[in-house]
């Protein structure tokens, strides 16, 4: 019971919400770049929010479903299509066997998520299905998906054929997730000041908060390089390596900054200018090369309040999706 990769995309990997607890071995949590979109994708199809799913970059893959399936696409808008029909994002879709999912156009965003009811069969490594490319473990043999790969799916008890009309290849189910509050205003990113912030020169502090930076083309899952005003410390410091997190903004020797992303190294020795708040990591992850970004400081209380709001929304969504799915199949 499977789907197959007819054409590989730029970088398609199996991810989940990551593997925690292995930092002392130098193994980072990894997982989806946009964990909000990934969790919503799973909830829409009635999966547990930590189920493995596909993270897709643009250009995306061409995927053939070899069986009927219930899927959802969330995150970036790469204009998903099943054969010649457009399908909406943030909404569950039943698809008939032998339909081809493809992504002809980049409209917005950076990473897109494909979930499937029941979840993918994938390699579990250190308690997670997410792909650790450096270690070559987890997901699909620790590798990105390539042409010819077949992914097996877990058995489902839902009779999808019964949900599809005779002459139709797909059916869009009538519930969707409203995620505007998470992704609106992509360009302002809230940040907690970093430990080395006081050591930046006064001009650099002004530049960090007033100027606009942009995402450099050589950005990837490990980090988003930023292009913009050159910053400097008011005195030279050599820091010993210490733990960093997803969202840590480091100042590099050349005066440019890098924001650490999902595949960041566990430790780093560069000055820490600030840390993007958890609630803004999804919108950060959806930025593309060339996109502008402006930083604004906030405090822990505000950061936690925003995260609570997201968590609250996710809990409501999960209950609602679960109920709607049950109504539909019973």
């Amino acid at each position, binding site marked *: 019971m499977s789907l197959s990769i007819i054409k590989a995309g730029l970088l398609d990997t199996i991810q989940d919400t990551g593997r925690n607890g292995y930092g002392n071995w130098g193994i980072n949590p990894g997982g989806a770049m946009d964990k909000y979109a990934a969790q919503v994708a799973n909830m829409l199809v009635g999966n547990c929010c930590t189920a493995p799913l596909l993270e897709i970059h643009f250009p995306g893959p061409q995927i053939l479903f070899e069986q009927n399936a219930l899927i959802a696409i969330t995150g970036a808008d790469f204009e998903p299509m099943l054969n010649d029909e457009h399908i909406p994002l943030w909404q569950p879709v039943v698809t008939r066997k032998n339909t081809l999912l493809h992504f002809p156009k980049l409209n917005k965003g950076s990473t897109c998520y494909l979930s499937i009811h029941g979840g993918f069969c994938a390699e579990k490594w250190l308690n997670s299905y997410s792909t650790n490319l*450096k270690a070559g473990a987890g997901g699909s043999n620790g590798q990105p998906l390539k042409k010819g790969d077949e992914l097996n799916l877990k058995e489902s008890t839902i009779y999808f054929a019964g949900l599809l009309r005779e002459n139709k290849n797909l059916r869009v189910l009538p519930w969707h997730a409203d995620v505007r509050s998470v992704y609106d205003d992509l360009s302002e990113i809230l940040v907690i000041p970093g430990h080395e912030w006081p050591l930046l020169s006064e001009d650099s502090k002004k530049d960090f908060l007033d100027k606009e930076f942009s995402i450099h083309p050589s950005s990837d899952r490990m980090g988003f390089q930023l292009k913009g005003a050159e910053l400097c410390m008011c005195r030279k410091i050599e820091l010993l390596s210490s733990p960093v997190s997803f969202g840590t903004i480091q100042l590099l020797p050349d005066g440019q900054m890098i924001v650490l992303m999902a595949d960041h*190294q566990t430790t780093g020795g560069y000055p820490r200018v600030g840390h993007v708040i*958890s609630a803004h990591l999804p919108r950060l992850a959806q930025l593309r090369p060339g996109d502008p970004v402006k930083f604004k400081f906030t405090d822990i209380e505000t950061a936690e309040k925003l995260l609570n709001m997201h968590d609250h929304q996710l809990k409501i969504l999960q209950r609602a999706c679960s109920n709607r799915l049950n109504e539909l199949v019973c």
Partner: protein
Amino acid sequence: MPDTDYEIYSIGDAAVTLDFGNHIDKLLNRKALAIQQWIFTNTFPGLKDVIVSYSAVSVFFDPIAIQSLSPGKTSFQFISEKLKTAMKLTGYAEEGGEGSVVEIPVCYDSEFGYDLPYVSREKNLSTTEIIELHVSKIYYVYMLGFLPGFSYLAELNERLVLPRKPKPVPVVAGSVGIAGSQTGVYSLNCPGGWHIIGRTPLKLFDAGNSPPVWLKAGDHVRFKPISRDEFDHWV
């Protein structure tokens, strides 16, 4: 250790660090390890990881879960209190004796130790002297980081201390490097900025093993020189 200076600060809203300052000091590291062990032993919902570095210990957590443990406090306040308690209640992590030194075989052949000529010129030492200085010390593993299985060992004999390369270059897994007062083995192929003086046939990281890493913070390590022939036939 009641008079030791330390600072507690957040690294974002989902991690807090207790930092003894920028020092390579075995005692501080063993205190960090003791705090880590205490937190693991006194775990709580929402705890994701506790990572030790040279002279700091960082707690990673889920702020939502922590909130429900202590309404009215931020998770920073909750975790800071845990760290302060751990500071008071712990001594130092036990140190392994001489018998627990891990021996790492290294071939210092010129093909593997391709930065030996550079180090030799910079430090005014012969290759033989460099190797002798590198193998005649027992090093302490302060932390793992950077890559799966990459261990930071210190302190090098001061005659070998020199700054890292200005830009990282591709390095082969097993390469033994030095930079600043540190030495270590690259566990995977990757870009690296340390000066490469040899190579070990050991796999310091193997995803298929349990645990997948060879060394951990608190271990002691000695390098043992082996010939090219021994390297090629290592089992």
